């Protein structure tokens, strides 16, 4: 056929040293932005706290240290909570479950969403419609409602919350994966693999997936942010796994009554959650900006 205008423009643009875009280089390039660096520092700090916190905590997480709602003082740097337990120790101990649950839920949602999105984009037939309409149905449920109902019906087990959050993450990831994969499916290297008879799963994960990583990374970090928020919110609403285990969301709920005279019990976990979600959000934003920046500079050429 006649050369497409697009092809010709690509031919015009490329000789001017277009920056290569690969997943690894996208991450590395995004590190040039301060927002990504700050994000990674924040997430790194809170992950570090979640991992080593229990070992450096001055007291046991359920140990009675001083009278309930004692202000900061000797023995308790940030005072005590409603049961007289050390706020600092519970803070150091309370991040692990949130982070772990958010990570598992997001990862599970990411994997399922990517598979569904890529299959839908590659199939482009009735299967595509069935899959994506199914995703729309799930998306119709508000994330927190679904988690609340599941926790109320089955009980607030950690896996129930993880499944509920993963389930609501799937359609959002699937949409992004499908959207990013659609233009790639049209490209000739996919046809080339088909002509060679490369197995379908290999085309999906060898050819399609690597070319959709940019938008997926952005979406994954955004979903991680939301998952942390929802898990903390559920704990705040009393749907934490064990009322006795320390948990940032639960701490806010337990200590908010004393906000006027012993604010640390509620404020410290709030700061922790805020820093964590800000961190994941900034990382996602940095990657998104880097990807957009690459697109922009290509456009200018």
């Amino acid at each position, binding site marked *: 056929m006649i050369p497409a205008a697009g*092809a010709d423009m690509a031919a*015009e643009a490329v000789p001017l040293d277009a920056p290569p875009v690969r997943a690894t280089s996208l991450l590395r390039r995004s590190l040039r932005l301060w927002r990504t660096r700050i994000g990674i520092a924040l997430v790194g700090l809170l992950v570090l706290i979640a991992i080593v916190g229990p070992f450096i905590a001055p007291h046991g997480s359920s140990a009675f240290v001083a009278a309930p709602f004692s202000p900061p003082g000797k023995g308790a740097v940030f005072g005590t909570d409603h049961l007289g337990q050390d706020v600092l120790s519970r803070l150091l101990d309370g991040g692990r479950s949130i982070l772990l649950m958010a990570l598992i839920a997001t990862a599970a949602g990411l994997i399922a969403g990517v598979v569904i999105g890529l299959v839908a984009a590659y199939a482009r037939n009735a299967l595509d419609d069935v899959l994506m309409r199914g995703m729309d149905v799930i998306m119709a449920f508000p994330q927190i409602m679904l988690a609340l109902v599941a926790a109320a019906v089955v009980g607030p087990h950690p896996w129930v919350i993880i499944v509920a959050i993963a389930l609501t993450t799937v359609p959002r990831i699937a949409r992004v994966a499908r959207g990013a994969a659609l233009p790639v499916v049209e490209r000739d290297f996919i046809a*080339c693999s088909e002509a060679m008879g490369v197995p379908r799963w290999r085309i999906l994960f060898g050819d399609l997936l690597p070319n959709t990583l940019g938008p997926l990374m952005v979406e994954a970090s955004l979903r991680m942010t939301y998952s942390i928020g929802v898990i903390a919110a559920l704990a705040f609403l009393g749907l934490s796994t064990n009322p006795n285990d320390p948990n940032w969301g639960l701490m806010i709920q337990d200590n908010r009554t004393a906000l006027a005279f012993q604010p640390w019990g509620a404020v410290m976990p709030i700061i922790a959650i805020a820093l964590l979600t800000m961190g994941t959000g900034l990382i996602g934003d940095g990657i998104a900006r880097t990807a957009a920046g690459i697109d922009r500079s290509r456009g200018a050429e």
Partner: protein
Amino acid sequence: MSTAEFAAARAEPTRAAVSVQDLRIELASTRTPVVSDISFEIGRGEILGLVGESGSGKTTVGLALLGHARRGLSIAGGSVLLGDRDILDLGDEELRRLRGALVSYVPQDPASSLNPALRVGIQLREVLEAHQADRNGQRASRGDHSERIAEMMREVALPDEREFLRRYPHELSGGQQQRIGLAMAFANRPRLIVLDEPTTGLDVTTQAHVLETVRQLAKLHDVAALYVSHDLAVVAALADRVAVMYAGRLVELGTAETLFTSAGHPYTRRLIGAIPRLTGGRSLLGIPGRAASPGRRPPGCSFAPRCSMRIEQCDQEVPALRPVGPDHLVRCIRAEEVLTKEQRRIGDPIEMPAAGDLAAVRLDSVVALYGRHEVVHSVSFSLAAHECLALVGESGSGKTTIARAIAGLHHNWTGKITLGDLPLHTSARRRDADTRRRIQYIFQNPYGSLNPRRTVGEIIGQPLRVFGTASGRDADRRVAEMLERVSLTASYAARYPDQLSGGERQRVAIARALVCDPAVLICDEVTSALDVSVQAAIVELLGNLQRDLGLSMLFITHNLPLVRSIAQRVAVLHDGVVTEVGETAQVLGSPAEPYTRQLIADTPSLETAIAEVGIAEPPTPATSPG
């Protein structure tokens, strides 16, 4: 305007419609020059062709004539004089008023330049109204415009009925859209018009009509036109004078006749040598190396690193653009020596090997459909063993559909395709591995056919892995071997596709097709996204490979002259029907079918252009439906 008249016009500087002096354009961020030392004039009613390959800066210069710099670029110096006004000194509001009225622009892609939500009549009226208001301070009556619009439509050979003007852009063909673009550009009788490859996406027949319209309108209204193009054959057919750009500088400027018969710059000569000719199957000569990108250009002559006549002085300073004859400027210190050489000798006649008797691929009453729409109607032909058969046709003729059906990529067809004696299944997936290995496909666009996330080594090694031919060290060795075979080096294996030029990418795609030792190679418009010099090199490579390896090759193209340089036989496809099959020389030399004859007549080629510079007759509007 003839050369003599133009020479007279030049002697009187006031008569030049536009005069560009020392234009310099830089990357805004690093102040790296992208385009520099550009000086030329265009007389009234004259068409200046500005030719150059990708990245030469020709479009950048074209836009600068409108006072525009693309994002990331800035016009750093020089002047563009339109009469006594310098366009580069004007403010935004003055420029806005100027554009469309005194200077206008016809972009490459007509579809994207028309508003898809407005009827074309309204868009034409807008152009008139916008500038009428500027001129008179008031709007002219509607009736006036209707008459003017009808006149404009007649000028570009489009129907001027009300029904036609009520159409939306998507209801027009590509040629009609581009005619609307031309009508809008000429609407306010501008002094200067910049055309940026306006026929690139069009079929040859449509292109021929559009080119005639451009020529006719420019002469009729005394408009100075700058025709920016990568296609020398088109420029040769259209332009009075030609400016050749290389790496951001003009390297040669002269009348079309001078340039195409006795060019004074080695680059121009190589470029002309790379153009496929309609007469005589000569091998095409590519230009080795690639043009340096801005910021990496050598201190001396930019072409020196690729030039066969390079001497020490070439590297010392940028040569001046100096006159070497009447109205002929060349930027080369050895221009006189170049001029003494015979230009005519380009490429050696190709010895085409005789085709085998056995059919490698045979199509028997193949009918292909898109949905319910039949695009290929009962096509039968065969590709003999060890021959190169060119399948030519305009866009929409079904040539790519046939190619994809053979490769098993287009599934919706009936009939029979056999590979040797083996009937082929419609889908590549249902064919056995050896069948898939024996038919290899090279795609049109090398920017889409290579996975950007894989290294060249992985891409070329993929077929080896898929077909289980070789693995580990053995595979690496085969990949290196293939890279050498397509004139790249083994070090390319570690690179990613986006680190390669278009020509290099297409070589990688060829290596990927050859690595598994195929019997049949399908080349689908493999050079249409490439520059002429690169195209020549790729065709040379494919021709050599086909002859050396005894491949059976189906070469699909819309470019008729190219066929002469590669194919033994040619099949002409028209609206899904094969109208003519035969020896290349016979089909192109003395075509039996009227359609083939028309196609050849409309194909811009250097021979016809040189013979008829400036004497082409304007077409009668009735015969050009666009």
